[in-house]
């Protein structure tokens, strides 16, 4: 998992060295390839060698999103009570025979379930079994996953830790990383804006003013990018695929448009190029901070008749 952090922070630095807009067809190719992968470092390497022209962070982001979709699809299958029970029994029996082996990881790999999610299921079962009550509170469960040593069963704790550490798509650590990446990019955006001497209001200032919907940035003086007016900027530290983009559109981007006019979305890890089709309706997509900014000219010089 350290891996993913380092790779992602690397991208922030060396951003846009590689092309990050992918046409839909290519995205499908990647998507198909990714189907067989597991959320492990090894798999990430495979992915990178398969698509060397794409930045690792972009590939990771694509994989992560595709993998999440996959997990959601198979959720029902894994969450059936008898299935869960079976997983738990298997773990239990194997833990007795060869406790040192990465049992949960193996199991996860076997049934194509995210290690972190599997660990969660197992811990849940474990707690249920111990307390024989209706189930531990969510809070306790989350804490145990976050800090495995809280789990009374030391062996299980180790296995759980192994899972969360090795899963690059799920788990408390990944959540933290993702959150951090998001913040970092927002910060990056603000720095860039300051560098360019563009003044803006950020989310917090907007909230204080009572706005009901708040993009990351509202420019006090609009700019033009590629001939399109930009009032607001939303930073997304992820890859923009169809699914996530449509969700964002409905929950955020259109709302911003409806209130503040046209704006810009930066998908730092790239996006499916066909999605950038709402420019005329006020949503412009970019995979990095725009360099071709046109600002309102200062001074009366241009006004000459």
């Amino acid at each position: 998992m350290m891996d993913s952090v380092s790779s992602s922070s690397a991208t922030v630095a060396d951003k846009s060295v590689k092309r990050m807009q992918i046409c839909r067809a290519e995205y499908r190719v990647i998507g198909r390839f990714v189907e067989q992968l597991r959320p492990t470092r090894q798999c990430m390497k495979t992915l990178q060698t398969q698509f060397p022209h794409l930045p690792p962070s972009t590939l990771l982001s694509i994989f992560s999103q595709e993998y999440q979709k996959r997990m959601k699809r198979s959720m029902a299958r894994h969450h059936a009570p008898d299935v869960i029970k079976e997983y738990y029994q298997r773990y239990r029996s194997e833990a007795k025979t060869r406790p040192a082996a990465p049992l949960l990881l193996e199991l996860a790999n076997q049934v194509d379930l995210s290690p972190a999610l599997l660990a969660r299921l197992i811990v849940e079962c474990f707690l249920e079994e111990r307390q024989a009550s209706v189930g531990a509170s969510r809070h306790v469960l989350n804490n145990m996953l976050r800090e495995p040593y809280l789990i009374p069963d030391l062996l299980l704790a180790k296995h759980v830790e192994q899972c969360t550490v090795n899963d690059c798509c799920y788990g408390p650590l990944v959540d933290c990383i993702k959150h951090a990446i998001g913040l970092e990019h927002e910060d990056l955006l603000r720095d860039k804006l300051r560098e360019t001497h563009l003044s803006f209001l950020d989310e917090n200032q907007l909230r204080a003013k009572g706005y009901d919907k708040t993009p990351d940035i509202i420019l006090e003086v609009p700019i033009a990018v590629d001939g399109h007016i930009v009032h607001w900027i939303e930073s997304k530290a992820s890859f923009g695929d169809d699914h996530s983009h449509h969700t964002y559109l409905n929950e955020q981007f259109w709302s911003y448009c409806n209130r503040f006019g046209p704006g810009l979305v930066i998908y730092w890890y790239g996006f499916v190029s066909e999605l950038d089709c709402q420019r005329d309706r006020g949503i412009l997509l970019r995979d990095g901070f725009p360099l071709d900014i046109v600002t309102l000219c200062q001074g009366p010089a241009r006004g000459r008749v």
Partner: protein
Amino acid sequence: IKEEFVPFLLNFLRDQSSQTLTHGPTTPAKTPSTSRSVRTQDFSDRRGNKSTPIQTSRSASRVQLFSPAPSVSPVSGRGEQETPFTGSHCLSGVSALSSPSFSSAWSPAPRNTPSERRSAQRPSLGDFMTSPPEAQQHRGRRRSGGFGGCASGRQTGPRGAVSEEGVRWDGGGRRSRGVGRIEPVSPPTQVQLNFNNLEDFPPVGAAQATKPSRRINPTPVSAERPNSKPKSCFISTPLSLPASPPAIPESAGAKLTAGSPHSLQEERELLRKERSKLAQQTSSPLKTTPVICTPTKTVHRQGSKVTPDPQSPCPDPNKVTQKSELDLLAELYCTCISENLVPCVFLELFFVLQLLTSHGVSVSESGEEAISFCEDNVLEKAYLGNVHNCVYFSVRVLENQFELVSHLDKCTLRLLSENERVGTFSSSLKDHLAQAQENCTAKVLPSPPMFVHSVPFQPATDNRSNFSSDRAFHTFKKQRDVFYGFLREWEDSHKEPGWDFEAALGSRVRMMVSQLTAAGSHSHFARLFQKQLIQMCKGPCVLGSSSDAPDADLLGMLGADSLGRLKRLQQRLVQPQGLIGPCPPPSFPGHQEFFKCFLQTASCCQLNQHLKDGLCQQLLKLDEVSILGPDASPARGEETGDGDMEQQDEKQRFSSVLLTARLLAKFLGFISFLPYQTSELPSRDIQDTAITLRSKSSPVLDVCAVLRSSVHRRRTILTVPWIVEFLSMLDHIGPLLPFYRTALCLLLQIYKMLLGRGGELCYMNQLLMVAVLGWLFQIPIFPEDLFFSTDPKEEVKELENITSSQGLDTLPLVDQQLLYTCCPYLGEFRKLLAAFVAGSTSKSGGLIRKITPTSAELRGPSTSRSQQKLQVDLEQAFFHNQPPSLRRTVEFVAERVGSNCVKHIKATLVLELVKGGEKTLRDSLGLEGVNTAKLNDSICAQLCDAGMQALETATSENAPGAVRVLLPLETSPSVLTTAESITTRLATEKACSWLSANITSTLLKREWKSAFGRVMKSVPSSVSLDAEEGEGSNCTHKVPLGSEVMIEIKVIIANWVSEKLYKLVKTDSLKTGGLLMVIYTKYNLMLRNEKSTKLLKGNTQFTQLLSETISYQKCFIVN
């Protein structure tokens, strides 16, 4: 009387031309439905045929009204053609005229006439259109009737009436001539002829008797009218008996007989049905047309088929018959148009253009027919029976109405001026048109694809504190997005076939509205709705007409000739589009449709009520908006500069206010009358009940009061157009309510009295009002009987009580762009003419319309947008999310600073600059070979540059400070800087535009010119001095007087003599003295003999003398 005459005249013209127009389509076998449908439509609508929903009701009414024009009915027209009159008939007509029995003949028939006729006609029309066979039957019946005995008796009656009319009209013509509008009326004889023809129809009389002549119900004719002043007048005018007139009465008679009473009831029923149908269909006007048209055609065809002429006849001025009559007709017609006596001026213009572009039967045919049939049946002379006459008439009218025509858009003018018929018939008109086209600077531009701007979220009005609860706040947050979601969905899919608002969005819209109701946030949503409506629909609707716009451009570029070819080439790309005529029913073009459908679908009384409140409030506010005129109108010449600059702004502001008001008024009307809308006209009983019921409750807006006050304050140019929009939304019962009837009458009075008289109103202002009012009077909802029945004098007194001397009406506020934006149907002229150019080739049966490929370019890559445009966009965008007050402040400061700069420049700078220039001029004039004209130009340019610079410094010094002071302290620095720079730019722009407009043209140049003149005057005078020098008496001052010289010489000699010579020759001193005496004597002699003016000569002589003397003395001395 006037009132009855006008409708009659109109119908007469329609009838007359119907034949030509209908024939048109059929003649060229190739010209398929395109021209045909167009024609037919017009025809039908003219006819009063119900088939065309748009005009149906109207036309129907017309027919009835004028049913008098028996010939009017298509049938009769056909009949005519088949049996044109001959000379013999004319003769008979003459005899009839001369016969004393007129009056008597008249009296018997009159009462029943109208109704009978009407009935006869009626059925024929309706039947005819729908089922050809029947029509034929009718036709047969009629004809036979026509020849029946009745006819003879009838003749005389009409006669009398006619003559009366003629006289009166003649008077009218003269009157107008006095005004200067009309060309001199042709000699009385001819007048009579014409009049006779026109008014011989008994129906006129009938119409008179029954005021609401347009009504369907036939009213009994009262006999009063015919006898009023007729005969004497008739007699008094020396008549050369008209060749044709007699025919008319006969025809009238025939018609009368033909009318079979039994059919009347049926007819009425039919009419009623048709009407309701029409009303229903108003929204989709074109649907029905084709169906109806076809039958008509087939009927007509029979006649034309006989002689299939592949090429439509080429109108030839030499083949025009009855020129003088046509001239008279045209003049009459023009008077009616100029005096606003016709309900819709532009409809008439459209008609005239239709005549111009008519495809008539080929000459030979019609001629033959005419000859062959004339003896059999003399119905009426077919003045407009052939293309030549039609075109001639049309060109005459166009010439006469040139001022009106010249205000049409450039493309129309171009098409018109390049129309070969215009050229053939009147080259001067062609030239004038070409010239007008040149002068026509205004472009009807397709506005750039509008960016869908949202209504900005303003914390001041939209944040939580403006809502009663968190729930309301969050509900509204969601509903706002949902609403825009609908909008986008509608945009994406409403043009797909089969898409239906109700089906696609209905339940979701109602769900949304019900959530709003639950949260009680309708007022917020109503405000959002209204703002969004204005934002999207204020301008000309791009959405609906996007494909038309490139057409216009194309036309402008190519001109008529190449366009024809291009159009043909494009045929595969085109789809038929019927002409909708100049009076389409009210519609909701572009995005308006979304808002309309939304309201209809939501049908939420809370929302509607909030909207009504908001719309009313804003409308009245807009109506009160103050628009400034130029400060000193008398000093207009001198003030042009400043005035123009501010005037331009005010004009823009006005147009924005007007468009907004019209939009809001339409929606206010829509919402207000929505509850009463019915698909069919309710029956009488229901009507009465509804009227009683509804006249108790107060109307949503006191239209009458607003109107009156606007007349008094001379603000009709703003108020009338939006009131028209409001009233155009009336439901069936609406116009019958006393309140709205009063309002409509007020509008009528404004139309007839205020606008008809012209005068103080600015021409374009007047044109706009005439256009919108004319449209209102033609749309189905306007009661048919109203236009010709109201007495315009009723309230005129009150209206004339104008309190303010200066109002908006007198300001030049309307330009062509605004006119066409408000009245997109004026584009129909262009379409009509373009269709004519496209000619008969298009088979689709309508005007050619391009599929949109070209528009892709327009919309194209945003990269092509110029930087300039981007800057403007950015500037607009900047204001979008700022509080509105920021924009107001910036605009205000810019306006003031700019204006002050201009004043300053005028007061001081111009003088300085001119002085500087003067100096430069003087300096450079000293040099040899200076081209003064060039010098003048260059100095002018220098002055401009200096002025610009001064302006820029002045604005950039003043504007930022002012903005800074006026904006709140909390304004963020970047916003402040931007605001400052925008203000400075705006101010400079304003001042500069003034400068460039005036330095080069008026003010500075004028000042400079006078300075230049001064310098040039002084320079030549100094130069000429040399030439003049020495002439005249003043030369004496420059040369010492002779006597002085002599004195000097004397002294010299004296000294000389005494000091030197004397010593040498003492004895000879006397001799010297003697010599001197000789000289003196000689000089004195000279003085005496010569005139003082010739002293010069004397002087030379004297000088000579002196030198002689001296040399002599020398000799003497030496000797």
